[in-house]
């Protein structure tokens, strides 16, 4: 895998992870304050913009690699999102959830390495 491919995989992954957290925040906010307020709209716009960047980068990568090889890199996002949600969104994280997320991540990474 070339440096360029690695770079695009990482950028696509990071923008995806941050997008998920921002969207969760937006939806939590909408549950409290409804859909018609500027904070919800700006959060959801940031989330969608990041998802779009991640989408096009993935499309560029798909032209070069097998789907079954490329796609599982997103597996790393499970662990990253779980940990960041616990830290930044204060979601409860128990041992079972952590081990589950770790196994899913390990499994997806194995799939992508093989």
């Amino acid at each position, binding site marked *: 895998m070339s440096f360029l491919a690695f770079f695009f995989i990482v950028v696509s992954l990071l923008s995806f992870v941050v997008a998920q957290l921002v969207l969760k925040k937006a939806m939590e906010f909408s549950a409290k304050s409804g859909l018609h307020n500027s904070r919800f709209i700006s959060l959801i716009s940031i989330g969608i913009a990041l998802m779009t960047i991640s989408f096009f980068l993935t499309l560029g990568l798909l*032209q070069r690699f097998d789907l079954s090889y490329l796609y599982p890199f997103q597996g790393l996002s499970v662990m990253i999102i*779980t940990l960041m949600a616990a830290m930044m969104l204060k979601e409860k994280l128990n041992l079972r959830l952590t081990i589950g997320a770790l196994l899913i991540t390990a499994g997806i990474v194995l799939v992508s390495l*093989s």
Partner: protein
Amino acid sequence: MQNRPSGFGNPWLQLTLSVLCVFVSEFLLKRGATDVAEPDSAFSWTGINGLTSPLVWWAILLIIASFISWLYVLRYIPITIAYPLSRVVDVLVPLGCWIFLGEFISTLRWCGIALVVIGLALVAKPVAQIEERL
């Protein structure tokens, strides 16, 4: 977890729909992107030339549908549970590649798929118990 609507508004049903849309869209994207691939052009790293394929546009429609149901899911289910569960698609996609595209799955890759399934079961079990109590 807050009070949740039932029927079509059930967030677990929406999570399932969201996963299915992503699953189908991945195959449309792979086929569409391959159809119009220009690996020699540096510009194609952006993926934007993928838009010339109609299959890519169908995939985009499915992705928008899955995105809307995903937002709905986020409103009701903690992301520490919903996101790991949504990764069931990472098992479905390689299995689909094997079944529909004839891509090869090695022993190591099968082991990875097994690990994901065990992890999913760990995340899903407490959820099933919570649902029973409700």
